[in-house]
């Protein structure tokens, strides 16, 4: 009864709707469209013959207790309460051709005979247009680009259609031949094959020595070393440190005059995946990073998240010199760091007086989430102390926040919820030409290959000149579907139950990759703000490993679930290969 277009279900019309359409010409709801009234704030669409009309049921005068529906054929209004009486159904069944009605407070079509919602593309497009008509006055040829009109600024670059390139197997060129011969280490040979199979640890697991409060760096490096697209890039020799330094040397005329964090990463990958299990000291890496982020160069404990951001920037900076590539981080074409981590966030700001919405797109390499403020006493909050039992799910079956357990999904829901900005944060409305109170809503326009979620556990108050750490436990899933947080989903929920005429365009943005993600690394922080320790948990071959500086141990997944997550790394499911337990060594 319903078909899928671009992955979204498009409901088929019921027989009554089909008959109605065939009897009433190509635009059967045209007259109804004149009655669409949009009420700010929130911009809900209603159907009223006159703007001030108070609808009542034609049979029983009811106007408040149940939903009211207007018959599309004769404009008579009736109540519809499926559990009690439905004068709308009575009307529909008594006169053929009068089955289709419209919810007067939601502008949604309903078949009173089927008792079910129905959809009409043209009508829904008209409603969406009415709700966004404040945006611009330009009419477009295709008629159904209302949402595109509301975009302030141009479309993000990556929406240009990508040309598909035919597959060609790789053959090394002469330079690659040489570097392959000189610098490569066979992954499996007589000496280390036995080493690997005896310890039965997956490739690339190697402890990192603490060089003096450098666990903030070690924890992030462990996560990056096992970020699938990043690992593949470096192990696939896509950035060769020998080749690169020569280039740099030639440009600047002096040896080692330029640091390159990507080269240091390449060296790190080589060392960690060499098969050698003795702990490695990333001293060169730390030194290079100090040179890049001079203000953070010290033996003091740093913030792991700050290090992460600064590292990505460092890798990006290097390739800024390559003018051939697009520099916009949003497209992901500028460097491997952005290719892997960069997504695009959409921000909609709606004026609460006139409804005008301005939309902006910004690239982002991660999403920082606030933990919930403390729950008010509702008498029902169960203690969040059940950290060690991962029966938190069982204890708290309801997604109700009264349970007191914060979840990553809850944080994401709050992140994408429409938020009223305070009266001290009035934003300039282009239509009103004055600062007005606004409603802001974030959503994800384009998902990255790897989503990094940063939990804001460290609060710094410049007013009170103090900082504190929030220890509250946050529950995070091992598998995460990001669909509800996409712009397409958020917009859908803003406009009620509609068919969207611009589904085709939005699908390009959410691209061919799915919205399902798998967790592969968790960076945790324990202890106080000034005296704490970072540890990373890695998920390899569906086993969890604890990486505590130089010590790597296999742990049970319940330990990970109970850990205090600070940064969680999720990769697109299609890129996450759940290897079998048996690692064949031939």
């Amino acid at each position, binding site marked *: 009864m319903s078909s899928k277009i671009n992955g979204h*279900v498009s409901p088929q019309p019921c027989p009554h709707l089909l008959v109605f359409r065939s009897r009433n010409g190509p635009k059967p709801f045209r*007259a109804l469209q004149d009655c669409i009234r949009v009420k700010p704030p*929130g911009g809900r669409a209603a159907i009223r013959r006159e703007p001030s009309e*108070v609808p009542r049921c034609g049979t029983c005068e009811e106007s408040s207790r149940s939903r009211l529906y207007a018959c*599309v054929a004769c404009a008579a*209004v009736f109540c519809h309460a499926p559990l009690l009486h439905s004068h709308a159904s009575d009307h529909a069944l008594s006169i053929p051709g009068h089955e289709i009605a419209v919810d007067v407070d939601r502008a949604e079509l*309903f078949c009173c005979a089927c*008792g*079910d919602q129905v959809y009409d593309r043209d009508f829904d497009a008209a409603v969406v247009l009415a709700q966004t008509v404040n945006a611009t006055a330009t009419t477009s040829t295709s008629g159904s680009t209302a949402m595109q009109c509301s975009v302030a600024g141009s479309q993000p670059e990556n929406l240009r259609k990508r040309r598909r390139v035919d597959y060609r197997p790789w053959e090394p060129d002469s330079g690659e031949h040489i570097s392959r011969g000189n610098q490569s280490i066979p992954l499996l040979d007589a000496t280390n094959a036995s080493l690997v199979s005896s310890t039965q640890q997956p490739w690339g697991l190697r402890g990192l020595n603490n060089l003096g409060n450098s666990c903030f760096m070690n924890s992030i490096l462990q996560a990056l070393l096992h970020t699938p697209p990043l690992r593949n890039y470096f192990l696939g020799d896509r950035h060769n440190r020998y080749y690169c330094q020569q280039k740099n040397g030639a440009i600047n005329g002096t040896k080692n005059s330029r640091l390159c964090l990507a080269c240091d990463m390449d060296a790190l990958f080589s060392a960690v995946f060499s098969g050698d299990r003795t702990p490695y000291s990333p001293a060169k890496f730390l030194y290079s990073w100090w040179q890049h982020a001079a203000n953070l160069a010290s033996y003091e404990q740093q913030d792991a998240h700050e290090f992460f951001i600064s590292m990505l920037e460092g890798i990006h900076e290097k390739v800024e010199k390559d003018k051939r590539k697009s520099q916009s981080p949003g497209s992901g074409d500028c460097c491997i760091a952005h290719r892997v981590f960069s997504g695009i966030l959409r921000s909609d700001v709606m004026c609460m007086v006139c409804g005008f919405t301005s939309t902006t797109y910004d690239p982002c390499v991660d999403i920082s989430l606030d933990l919930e403020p403390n729950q008010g006493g509702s008498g029902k909050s169960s203690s969040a102390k059940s950290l060690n039992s991962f029966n938190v799910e069982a204890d708290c079956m309801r*997604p109700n926040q009264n349970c007191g357990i914060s979840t990553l999904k809850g944080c994401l829901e709050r992140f994408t919820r429409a938020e009223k900005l305070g009266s001290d944060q009035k934003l300039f409305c282009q239509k009103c030409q004055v600062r007005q109170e606004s409603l802001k809503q974030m959503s994800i326009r384009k998902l990255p290959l790897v989503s990094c979620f940063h939990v804001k556990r460290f609060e710094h108050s410049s007013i009170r000149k103090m900082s504190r750490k929030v220890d509250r436990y946050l529950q995070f899933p091992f598998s995460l579907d990001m669909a509800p947080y996409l712009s397409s989903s958020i917009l859908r929920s803003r406009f009620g139950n509609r068919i969207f005429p611009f589904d085709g365009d939005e699908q390009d943005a959410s691209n061919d990759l799915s919205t399902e993600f798998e967790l592969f690394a968790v960076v945790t922080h324990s202890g106080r703000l000034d005296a704490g320790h970072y540890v990373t948990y890695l998920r390899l071959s569906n086993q969890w490993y604890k990486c505590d500086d130089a010590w790597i141990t296999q742990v049970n997944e319940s330990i990970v679930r109970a850990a205090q997550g600070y940064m969680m790394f999720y990769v697109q499911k299609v890129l996450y290969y759940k290897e079998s337990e048996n690692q064949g060594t031939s």
Partner: protein
Amino acid sequence: KHSVNRPPTPDGAEDQGNEPTLQEIINIKLIESGEKERLMELLRERLIECGWKDEMKALCRSYVKKKGRNNVTVDDLVHLITPKGRVYAASVPDSVKAELLQRIRSFLMSAAL
């Protein structure tokens, strides 16, 4: 055949000589002033925040999963969750109920009813 632009139906209440009840008067005043819409928005927000909406959604989802997507109508879902919604109303924090009552009270006082 009736056209959609037919003039509004005459007010049945007046024909029958019934006085509008207090409830009807309040309802009309709420609608005309726009307060009803604001209260509805407020309630929607609060019901989302306290998880009530998620409860209802979860109930609907499991029902649809059980019956099959093509075998469920909106009316079926209304039948399903209306009684449950009343039960789950107990899970709505008292502060929400108090807030709404307070808003309605203030409105009534300001509307001099």
